[in-house]
């Protein structure tokens, strides 16, 4: 009883805009994960490293006097470079995809430390005109409105851009490669090149997300990417489970799917906030995320197994 008395709904309400903003930023990363995990059918663990790379690059450039906006562009490019490495390890050296991405991820940990010089580097909104910051959300109503409208416009533009890209010949080639490599090669698609390309685009988005998230929280940390892939997968899966039926079978279905993935990230962080509000220790959240992802990944498999059993029973 005392426990429930200690929970204040107002604190939850006040924290809500912050967690929605956080979810929107991680939505960019979730789009990257969607590209590799769903479209390319490649479990890419590079993201745990490349998100921190984006953060490190952005923060160090801003501290060095580069405009925060330009630093995000370079964070995007840095992410692409990480994707390139994973892609080449996989296609040029024949290392299995998941292992190739782990190798990149591990080496990025050192690379990120080299970029930052130490494990944590702050970048304060007081000293730099950051593109996004938690301060904008919490300061006043006008700032909050500007932030959310701006963020929403950016995300919609990003979805529009991806929708267009995956409707082009090159986008089709990525989808074909992910769906059926044999078919893609028989149609003259260089599946190795396409894999590298898709990994670069995906990790570019992840790097961009890292840069934005570092600015948002006011620091880059070498450990900030730990378990990022699980959050990305959680966002993809939550989006698909909750909005999948809504998104499919209509015009622009793919755009709706991408939006659903972003919503998945927002919902993830709202639930996250809620669970923290229930006074669950924040260190336990990774366990919580992993369990959520496990459940949702297992559901389709178990459903299929069950329907197969039923089918056998009927005969």
């Amino acid at each position, binding site marked *: 009883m005392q426990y429930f008395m200690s929970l204040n709904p107002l604190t939850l309400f006040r924290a809500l805009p912050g967690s929605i903003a956080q979810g929107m930023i991680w939505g960019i990363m979730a789009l990257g994960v969607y590209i590799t995990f769903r479209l390319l059918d490649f479990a890419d663990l590079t993201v745990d490293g490349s998100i921190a790379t984006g953060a490190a690059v952005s923060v160090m450039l801003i501290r060095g006097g580069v405009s925060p906006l330009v630093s995000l562009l370079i964070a995007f490019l840095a992410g692409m470079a990480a994707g390139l490495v994973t892609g080449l390890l996989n296609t040029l050296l024949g290392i299995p995809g998941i292992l190739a991405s782990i190798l990149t991820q591990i080496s990025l940990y050192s690379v990120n430390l080299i970029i930052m010089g130490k494990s944590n580097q702050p970048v304060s909104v007081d000293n730099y005109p950051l593109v996004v910051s938690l301060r904008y959300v919490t300061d006043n109503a006008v700032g909050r409105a500007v932030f959310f409208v701006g963020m929403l416009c950016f995300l919609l533009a990003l979805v529009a851009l991806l929708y267009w*890209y995956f*409707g*082009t*010949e*090159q*986008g*089709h*080639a990525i*989808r*074909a490669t992910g*769906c*059926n490599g*044999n*078919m*893609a*090669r*028989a*149609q*003259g*698609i*260089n*599946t190795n090149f396409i894999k590298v390309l898709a990994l670069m685009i995906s990790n570019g988005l992840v790097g961009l997300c890292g840069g934005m998230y570092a600015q948002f929280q006011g620091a880059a940390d070498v450990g900030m990417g730990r378990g990022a892939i699980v959050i990305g997968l959680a966002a993809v899966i939550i989006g698909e489970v909750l909005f999948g039926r809504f998104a499919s079978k209509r015009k622009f279905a793919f755009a709706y799917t991408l939006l659903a993935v972003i919503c998945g990230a927002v919902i993830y962080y709202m639930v996250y906030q809620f669970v923290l509000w229930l006074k669950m220790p924040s260190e336990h959240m990774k366990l919580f995320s992993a369990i959520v992802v496990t459940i949702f990944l297992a559901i389709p498999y178990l459903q299929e197994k069950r329907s197969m059993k039923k089918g056998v029973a009927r005969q």
Partner: protein
Amino acid sequence: MSYALEIKDVHKVFNRGTINEKVALDGVNLNLNPGDFVTIIGGNGAGKSTTLNAVAGVWPVDSGQIIIDGTDITGLPEHKRAAYLGRVFQDPMTGTAATMDIEENMALAYRRGERRLLRWGVSRAERSLFREKLMTLGLGLEERMTSKVGLLSGGQRQAITLLMASLKQPKLLLLDEHTAALDPKTAAKVLEISDKIISENHLTAMMVTHNMRDAIAHGNRLVMMHEGRVIYDVSGEEKKNLHVKELLAKFEEASGGEFANDRMILA
């Protein structure tokens, strides 16, 4: 005039130096004239599909040469050879991308051998072309152009794959037991479509089959393989007058009295 396809003394050994070593191609020689429709038969492990895969470049050959229409393609990777080839596979799942629409699959095939840049994946003009082509199949698929190919039956998928293989005129069409996974009625329909597409587009084609009757009924030339070599090559009138019984006898004779496998007898 050059041959449409020249296979010169091609060798391929799988798992060399291991206990699973298998001589798959043991000096295959075969020349196809433009317009030839060759059916290839032989027992399991005779090297029929392996020959097609060698031409398609699924893996590099150990030695020998493969020349298409005067161009040596022996050193080219699979995706570059695709510019010359139309391919249909045994498994209906292999030839198409299940999660993509019918029209998207066709558009992918329509760009075979071209650079893929940032133009639209399917243009409006292409849509109407694809619709016309689909109508010729007579399967009603022209009404389902934005359906995912994964929702179609095996026969429908093979029919679309055939169409895709011929959308962009290939120098050579490779049919790798493309009716083996279908029920007899569907298989007959797909064979009929194959014949039609090959004759209408004047294609040079190779068709691997287990079915002796099909091998005799289709094409203008018949090749029998055994243990990685071509052991019998018949065309023209002689092929037209062939019967399953003779073919079986030929096979037993060539293979040194070894009994033809069950699948071939039943066929």
